[in-house]
Structures are given as C-alpha cells and as structure tokens.
C-alpha cells in the first residue's frame, strides 16, 4: 500500500472520494447468471471496471483418480487473468499471485458448498478476469458463488465478498484501483450472510486495532449489499428479469 504518492485527492472536503463516491458507497455492481452454454453454471460480473466471467463444471469424475476423496467431494478453483485485462500485457502463464488468489477463493467458497453430498467427485470453478480493476478477487468470488448456485450445486449459504480499506486516514467501503495504489490499507472480506461467518479476510496496510474492527464491519456491510445483487441475478435467471 501507499508505495507511490501522487497529487490525487483521495477524500475531498465534502467527504467525497476520488471517483465521487461517499465513504460507505460501493461502485456499480452488475451480475448476470447463466451466461455460458457449455458450463454447468456460470455468471458474469461487472464490479467497477472489473469484468469477470465464472464457469462451473461438476460434480464430475476426478482426474487423476487418486485425487478423489471417498468421504466428500473436492472443490478446485482457478483464478486467471486474460493477457489484455491489465495495462501492460500479462503473460498468460499463471503467476504466483494468481495461484494464491485461486487458493484463497477456493477456501472462501468451501464452507458454503455441501461437499459431503457428492463424495468421489469434483466441482471445478474457472474464473477469467477479462478486465481487472481494484477488488478483482472479491468480484471474482461474487461471480463464482453465483455460478455455483446457477450450476445447482447444493449450498448451505451464499458467499458475498467486498473490500473495505483506509484512505486519507478514513475507513471506506470498496477500494478502487487508485485508492489501492495510493491509500493506506486494503482488506478484502468474504462473508456468508446467513451463517454470519467470515470465510476470507486479508489485509495489506497498517490499521490500529480500532480501525481494524471498523474496517471489518464496513466490509461486512458491503458484503450484505452484494448479497442482494447476487440474489437478484439468480432470481432473474430462474424467474425472468422483472426489471425488463
């Protein structure tokens, strides 16, 4: 956090952020379920400037077989960025960052998936970042959770993710790219809204204990907003888009 210092005003005297948002206001979020033909479940999300596609296959046979678990299904996840998704063209081979994010997303979704219902099988989640912006791991998680539900995978709760952070000494909801570069802290959080459990939390940047508590609470409030949009996406898919 805070490596480069520029002239940008992260919070103006009216309490507005560099993109005009209020401190507790998320960016524009749009989720559409069931966008792919071949995948068993899928979702597309636009979250700020993030554009992300998630596809789910399974439960299906595990290859190689020795990876299968006789007690419960296994979950696999790949978070992958397109070469054109960032300013400087990205090498398509998975980076260490992508491998780590794949792992934390998998572990954030696993508590919600009833893997005990389908032993010896695997559910594969493939996430493709078409365009990256700040908070892409939360947006990816939100799309992946909707894709799992779209695939009809039994789930004990939704998983909803949103970051909070510290900018100009203030705790704010949903850090964008500039705030991530210039701000003081970024804390992505994933939350099961009914079971009230945090399934992902990371932090880069320095917070006092008091700020830490406020930041977690702010992120959870964002997760609850996302949850409503996730539910709407699934309603629209299965019962038709009422707004149209």
């Amino acid at each position, binding site marked *: 956090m805070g490596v480069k210092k520029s002239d940008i005003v992260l919070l103006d005297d009216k309490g507005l952020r560099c993109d005009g948002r209020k401190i507790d206001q998320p960016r524009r979020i749009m989720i559409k379920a069931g966008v792919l*033909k071949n995948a068993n479940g899928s979702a597309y999300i636009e979250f700020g400037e993030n554009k992300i596609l998630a596809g789910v296959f399974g439960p299906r046979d595990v290859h190689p077989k020795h990876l299968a678990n006789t007690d419960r299904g296994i979950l696999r996840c790949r978070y992958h960025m397109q070469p054109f998704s960032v300013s400087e063209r990205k090498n398509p081979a998975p980076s260490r960052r992508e491998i780590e994010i794949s792992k934390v997303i998998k572990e954030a979704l696993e508590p919600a998936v009833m893997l005990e219902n389908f032993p010896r099988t695997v559910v594969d989640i493939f996430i493709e970042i078409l365009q990256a912006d700040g908070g892409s791991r939360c947006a990816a998680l939100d799309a992946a959770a909707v894709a799992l539900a779209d695939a009809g995978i039994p789930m004990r709760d939704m998983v909803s993710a949103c970051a909070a952070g510290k900018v100009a000494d203030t705790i704010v909801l949903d850090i964008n790219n500039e705030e991530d570069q210039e701000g003081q802290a970024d804390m992505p959080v994933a939350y099961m809204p009914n079971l009230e459990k945090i399934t992902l939390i990371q932090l880069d940047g320095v917070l006092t204990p008091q700020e830490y508590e406020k930041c977690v609470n702010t992120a959870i409030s964002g997760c609850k907003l996302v949850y409503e949009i996730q539910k709407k996406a699934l309603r629209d898919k299965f019962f038709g888009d009422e707004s149209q």
Partner: protein
Amino acid sequence: MNVSIIDQLKKKKILSLLKDGQRVDGRAFDEPRPLVVDTGVIPKAEGSARIRLGDTEVVTGVKIQPDKPFPDLGDRGIFICTAEILPLADPNAEPGPPNEDVIELARVVDRGIRESSMIDLTKLVLQKDKSVVGLFVDNSVTDYDGNLFDACSYASVASIMSCKIPKWEMVNDVPTLVDGQVSDPPITTIPVSVTMGKIGDYVIVDPNADEWSCMDARITITTNSNGNICAIQKGGDDGFTLEQLLKCSQISIATGAKIREILKKVSGS
C-alpha cells in the same frame, strides 16, 4: 482417443442427413452460422471484440506497446496473435500449456492475417532498428461450439479494425507516450477465413461442434478484400480430391465476401 459409440451413432445420423441434403441444424451446406460482433467490450485494451458464431463465443483483446523489432526486420512493427481455449468454454478443455490443436489454431489465425498483409507494419516504426509498435492480439474462447479457426479469425480482425493506436515519440532514445493522441490502424485489406469440413464426400461450411467431432478432414481458406486467396491450412486424417479443393476455394471466396460485409459494418468502415 477412443471413438465412443455415441460418436459413431452421431456420425451415422449426420451422414444420413447429409445424403438427404440436410445438416443437423438445418443450414445449407455452404451456409455459415449467424455471426454477431461487438467491439470495444474491454475498454482498457486498445482494441477488443466479443463475437458469437452460432454458439461459439470468443473474446479478443489487442494490447499495443512499443517493443524492439525482430532482428533483420527493423523496418516494420510487430504483430503477434495467440489463442487459448478457456477451461470454462468446454468440459474437456484443460488449463495449462497449449496442446498441438491450440498451437495450430493460433498459428493459422496469425498466418491468415499476416499473409494477407492486413496491417501495414511499415507504418508502425518509431525508430528504425531500435523501436517499433507491437500489436498483441489475444483470443480467448469462452464458449465452444466448433470451428474456432473462423471464430478467432473474425474476433481478431474485428478487434484490430476497432483498435486505436496510441502515439509514442522517441525522447532520448526512449519511446514516450504522447497523451491523448491516437490513430486508426494502417489497414490495407480485410482477410476472412472460411473453414470447411469434409464428412464422407460432403463438404460443409462452418462445422458446429457435432459436425466438427465427426468430420474426416477440414480446410481453412483465407481470402482478402480483392477475392484472392492468401492462406490455406488443411487438417484432419483424410485427403481432398483436386475437384473438392477447387470447389472449396470458390466457396471460400463467396462466403468470405458475405462475412467481410458484416465485419466492415461493425467498425463503421
């Protein structure tokens, strides 16, 4: 590698329909599927397109960056075209390094554009032998329903036609971005590939996934705006007669002309 019984039954069905002059999805033999093209879908890329050819979907982005020229090619810019079948596009696709099919796909799409001289690369030199503009066209298949050759080719061409080239000036031998100034790409022709499959002795245009899985051979012929042929790739485990080859070239010219009109409309040219 085993041809499953289901595949054998499918092929039987498709062949018997072809004998009656019909295709599984009701198209004429020389009729490609509907092509839908959206450009500018990835605003952060210098050019982009999402296309659907039937139920095959491809998202393509063009990144444009200064680069060193290749040795002995110091007087022209760089053009590189890749292709990847994303694992969410197909239950059988696997993440990881590309297999020979995907390598062939990328090389055929690249060659169709390169051999047509679509982009005048001599216009993309910042300083001879030192610094040139590079166009990197990355095709990502997001949904699979056969014939990726044409789908990736159309997505590449549409994203190139719609791209904007930033301006760089050499300052102290370093290419330096001139903010806010962009130009259209130096396009000389619009190459269009047309892929035909051979099932038994029937030749069909733009095979869908069912047709693709049971065809005996295929040929991709790329034509340019003048109706000349600029690239060919034969594939598959059977051969073509001379007569079939000549017929394929005619189909590719006629069908290519129709597709070219769709691509032209999209970019407003």
